């Protein structure tokens, strides 16, 4: 079970893996995620189901800390101890009209299944994807296929338009064509910025919140976020929420909760790796 049958590096820091998980793959819907644990001592971390077919789950992750770095060292033929899911409420896919799908950085991987589903549901799908620099831009071809229009930004101008995804979003809004929905996934500061752009226009805006999770079933409360002044659990009430209601600052704070420990954990892991190789 949970064997890695394919692995691809999309960038030095971004990997794609395909994992066997038949039942989960048969059930997964856009917007849902799994929690994985590499081995007995491992942490449970959430990853979006980018694609699910033929009994395989496609996961794309960025190596940011101990678990994702460790995951990046695994190869084809290795197995994961657990994959649990599909978790979270699926994104609400229906015909809205014109939707704008925004993905930033690794968030593109999370936006992709939703964009594809929007398009399949008959929406006019405008996608904006952005990254710090060209080499970090993932799934361009896939996003192009899933969109009626694709706009690309890079912070350094190495590809597409130099700037931020919200600059492109503003331009689209300025075109004056009504937008039924904006869906954004990426760094929290990006999602916050998107919310601020659409708020004055009253455009319905959804974000997928990447809070820290443990069980993913509503039991621990680790993933709690404040939405419309109420405490919600991202794993069962979300991960999609109305961007205009989310307390992003609180969320940014909570994502920093384990910084010191994470740093230590990663250091010890790299040291061990160095000894082994």
């Amino acid at each position, binding site marked *: 079970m949970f064997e890695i049958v394919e692995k691809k590096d999309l960038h030095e820091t971004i990997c794609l893996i395909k994992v066997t998980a038949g039942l989960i793959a048969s059930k997964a819907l856009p917007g849902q995620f799994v929690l994985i644990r590499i081995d007995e001592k491992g942490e449970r971390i959430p990853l979006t189901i980018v694609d699910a077919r033929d009994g395989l789950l496609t996961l794309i992750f960025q190596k940011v800390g101990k678990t994702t770095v460790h995951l990046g060292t695994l190869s084809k033929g290795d197995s994961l101890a657990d994959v649990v899911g599909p978790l979270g409420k699926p994104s609400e896919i229906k015909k809205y009209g014109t939707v704008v799908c925004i993905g930033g950085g690794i968030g593109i991987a999370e936006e992709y299944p939703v964009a594809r589903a929007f398009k399949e549901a008959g929406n006019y799908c405008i996608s904006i994807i952005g990254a710090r620099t060209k080499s970090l831009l993932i799934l361009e071809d896939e996003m192009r296929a899933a969109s009626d229009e694709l706009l690309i930004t890079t912070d350094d101008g190495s590809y597409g338009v130099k700037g931020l995804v919200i600059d492109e979003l503003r331009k689209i809004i300025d075109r004056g064509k009504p937008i039924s929905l904006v869906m954004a996934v990426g760094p929290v500061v990006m999602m916050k910025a998107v919310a601020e752009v659409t708020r004055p226009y009253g455009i319905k805006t959804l974000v997928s919140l990447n809070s820290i999770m443990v069980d*993913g079933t509503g*039991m*621990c409360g680790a993933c709690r976020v404040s939405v419309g002044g109420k405490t919600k659990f991202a794993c069962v009430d979300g991960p999609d929420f109305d961007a205009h209601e989310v307390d992003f600052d609180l969320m940014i704070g909570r994502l920093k909760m384990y910084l010191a420990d994470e740093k230590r954990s990663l250091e010890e892991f790299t040291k061990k790796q160095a000894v082994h190789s």
Partner: protein
Amino acid sequence: MNSDKPKKKLILERQKMSRQDPLLRSKNFKEVALGYTDEEAVVEAVRCIDCKKPLCIDGCPVEIDIPGFIRLIQQRDFLGSARKLKEKNSLPAICGRVCPQEDQCEKVCLVGRKGDPIAIGRLERFAADYERRIGNVEVPKLPAPSGKRVAVVGSGPAGLTIASDLAKMGHDVTIFEALHSIGGVLRYGIPEFRLPKAVLEAEVDYLRKLGVKIEKSFVVGRLRLLDEFLMDGFDAVFVGTGAGLPYFMGVPGENLNGVYSANEFLTRVNLMKAYLFPDYDTPVVVGKKVAVIGAGNTAMDAARCALRLGAESHIIYRRSREEAPARKEEVENAQEEGVQFHFLAAPVDVLGTPDGWVRALRLIRMELGEPDDSGRRRPVPVKGSETEFDVQTVVVAVGQGPNPLVPSTTEKLEVNKKGCIVADPATGETTKKGVFAGGDIVTGGATVILAMGAARKAARAIDKYLEGEFEGKYWSPTASSSSALEQ
């Protein structure tokens, strides 16, 4: 010993059970209570006067033959004693450790009227441990397979109990558990120092020997719905998903960094072994000073874990010591280890640092007023009595509600106002045909033994149902047939 004499000369004092030294144990996660030696157990067992009308049995939610198992300890037939226990209780090594005996069997024990009641819990634990230590766990001969399949959702005490009962009745049982590990609260909530995981493992092994199948990391309501189980060829389903939804206090600042629900704190520590970080990957952040809000078993466990992680640990409770719902023994253990108690105080605010971490609690003093619905005197805040209490970590242990995942994804499964599944206490029957429920998901947070008792009753009902001899009281045949027509 002459059979008449000891009755006249009661041994009033119970045998002490040795425990790890408080100073030592407050720094490790090894079991606190060490259990009786054979000799101690026999001496304690001899105190039992083998009442003609043993009140202790009435005090036990699963009606263990208490004088019976104690008599076998007197006769040094320890294995026999363990087997006698298992006739009524499938998890004696667990119950002997975590049951609130002082409110159940021991409360009504006759000997308790003149001195200390018989240490029934400790003896239960002794016998069960003996069996496990000797490695002579007997698996009963199973009846011929009935050909019926039952899905058990959740692997807490309720799920474990019903799975073993139904397997012993010849049914094909599969447990579906959301976490990667079996045991429910016994696994993720109750710490190693109170319930060693090896004890739980032995129970899980026993289930496997009975032929029970176990699917871990399987979230029912997401990966598969209850209705799909029924369509997949399961003849009945038992829901024992527990009360795992953490309640918060609803005070400002509660989402600051450093504020944990007890569930998250305990799950990180116990299930994910954060106390072994960074050897294990999951961290837990514990400041120099920790405040745990509440005084139930959950609160004691959290406070004692915090202490073991090196913090100064404080319990803050809005009522007085008398109302504290935790087991007395655990309150004493906590106190001995150095947990500090603040009664009649409640947080009104969690105060933060500029970068979003907990800095202090604002506490208000409480007075006890008139008794409320629970019969306990209601705490009333004293105006103007707020003080600041510096802490870096806050653990909220003010109770938990039923997990909504299964009810919210199942049609025709009725829940009450609190979100608990409505089920007949005598049979576990729910409003949905073929679905039974028991344990905390029905009662709200209760006890291990009550969850087991409910599961036992549901096992009998399900057995009858599978034989076609169970008349559902709540199933509405009209409702289900009309929806069948719609389809």
